């Protein structure tokens, strides 16, 4: 059994019979209790990697182990232990905030009491109290995103995957959410995020930089900054993958 919460070996995903090489051989290792941030240009393969790790996308080749389970074979047994907020909101637009949260709580087999306790807690942490009984369709983009995060956490998963979790969330709340993510980490949860906000990525324990479906650089923010002699992650990003979109 792997000592890592997430371990991939030579992970590959090709779309359209090999025409699109979205992920091109990734060896990723994420330890228990760390916040790992994927950064990379649009189309570099972050979401594709996350979807394979959550067991919702079948890889073309390679191996994936998550929480000691082999994916995609054992994905069913993973379901109670993993929480995901996909890049799209993925909430029911015709249900209220509370109905969305409690529906997923019931799917996870939580008791009414557990749903009430954990749900109310998340609603207050994610500052959705006022919108509790509002139909999701009428929420602002940032609020839908917050609802999506709440759903991901309703069953208190050990591993949390946030694909651009804080897109559309205002800067003040974003800083506040990162404090919340860190408190989750301090509780022993493992978090894998993707982000386009570089000062946000800087708050992660480790950063992985993706380019053309490959993990081209990895390390703690301070390690990487000194290695490339740059002042911040933004400069690092521009240095290492700034030309990806331009070339395409």
């Amino acid at each position, binding site marked *: 059994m792997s000592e890592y919460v997430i371990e991939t070996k030579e992970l590959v995903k090709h779309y359209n019979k090999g025409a699109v090489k979205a992920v091109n051989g990734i060896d990723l290792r994420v330890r228990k209790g760390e916040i790992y941030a994927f950064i990379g240009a649009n189309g570099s393969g972050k979401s594709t990697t996350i979807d394979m790790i*959550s*067991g919702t*996308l079948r890889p073309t080749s390679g191996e994936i182990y998550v929480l000691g389970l082999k994916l995609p074979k054992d*994905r069913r047994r993973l*379901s109670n232990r993993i929480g995901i907020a996909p890049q799209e*909101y993925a909430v029911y637009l015709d*249900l209220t905030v509370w109905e969305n949260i409690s529906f997923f709580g*019931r799917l996870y087999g939580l008791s009414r009491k557990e749903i009430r306790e954990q749900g109310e807690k998340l609603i207050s942490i994610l500052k959705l109290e006022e919108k509790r009984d509002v139909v999701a369709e009428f929420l602002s983009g940032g609020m839908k995103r917050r609802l999506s995060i709440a759903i991901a956490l309703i069953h208190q998963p050990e591993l949390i995957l946030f694909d651009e979790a804080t897109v559309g969330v205002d800067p003040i709340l974003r800083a506040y959410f990162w404090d919340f993510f860190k408190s989750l980490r301090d509780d022993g949860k493992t978090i894998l995020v993707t982000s386009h906000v570089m000062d946000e990525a800087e708050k992660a324990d480790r950063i992985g930089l993706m380019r053309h479906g490959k993990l081209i650089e990895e390390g703690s923010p301070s390690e990487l900054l000194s290695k490339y002699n740059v002042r911040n992650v933004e400069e690092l990003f521009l240095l290492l993958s700034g030309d990806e979109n331009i070339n395409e």
Partner: protein
Amino acid sequence: MRISMSRRYKRFSASRVFALSTRVLKQFTRDRRTLGMIIIFPIMFMLVFGVVLSGEVKHVPIRIEVADTGVTNPFTNETVNIGEDILDSLVANDRVEVELASYSESIDMVEAAEIEAAVLIPENFTQDLTSTGNATIKVYYDGTKPQLKASVFTALTEAFKDLSKGGIDFEEIQAFGVGELSGFDVGIPAVMGYILTFLILLLSVLTAIREDVNHTKTRLYTTPITPVERILGYVIALSLFAMVETTIVIAIAIYVFGATVHGNIYLLFGAGLLYGISHIFLAFLLSNFAKNELQSVQMAILIAIPSLALSGMLIPIFTFPEYLKWVAAFVPLTYGIRTFEGIMLRGWGLAELWFEFTVISVLTVVFFVLALLSSSDISSD
């Protein structure tokens, strides 16, 4: 707070199914467009189709027994047989498709809804006509479809005209239906079948595809819910819709258009529901191959529109050429209409309709299995 270890992964969970069906029902009640579709569409359909249902029909199958022995002129030794002449004229008339069979055998066929009418030209037909100027032909007919009945009697009347013989009477015996049936009476079972096919397919594919459109399907993949649970959850919710739909359609038929149900109304309701459920599964099967709302609607239409023609709703199946009859045998609506007509117009029960019920049940299971086989909890692209 820690996760209790008792919450292990269950292979099948009724509470997950129930959670999903209540969610889908909630979704329905919030959506005015869908609610409108449930109530307004059936009324509109009934009116439109009811008015249109009339017209001339050709190649109506009948069986005839010519028992007429004719009259032989003792001087010239020539035999006159008016019964045979009528037969020749009927054979030449394309309103009807004539075959010879004994009257009693033909009556059975009318009762089994295989042919429209049984005709008997009695033994001393020519005799009576030549001696008294009056004779009677027995016609035993179905009576559930006025257009078909009209074709038969028009053909017979034309036959007498050809022979320019007056004084021929009919002894009409109606097999089904009490008194005269109105156009609506006749059209309603078929329209019911069609409404159920179209609306249930449409609503079900739209409901199912929403999961993809909202990207909630991917999220569902990460929860413990299984494909079987997902399908069952939806089917339970959509079955309630099918019940409402069936009730509305039957109620409108009876209270608005004054249709009479000669058979058991609960059986009729059950048949509508079973037929509806088979189409919910079919919709699920289709939605697994659709990528968006537009595609799913196109698929529903692709099934519903040809069904209209091929089920015999517009033109009776026995007027179809042989190869089309085969196609019709594979159209679910064919069996739906036969069942609804049987119960409503002919007063049939399970004893007569066991075959149709079996076909619909088998289809339900087949669609369920296919929907399940094409469902997944992981995407490949």
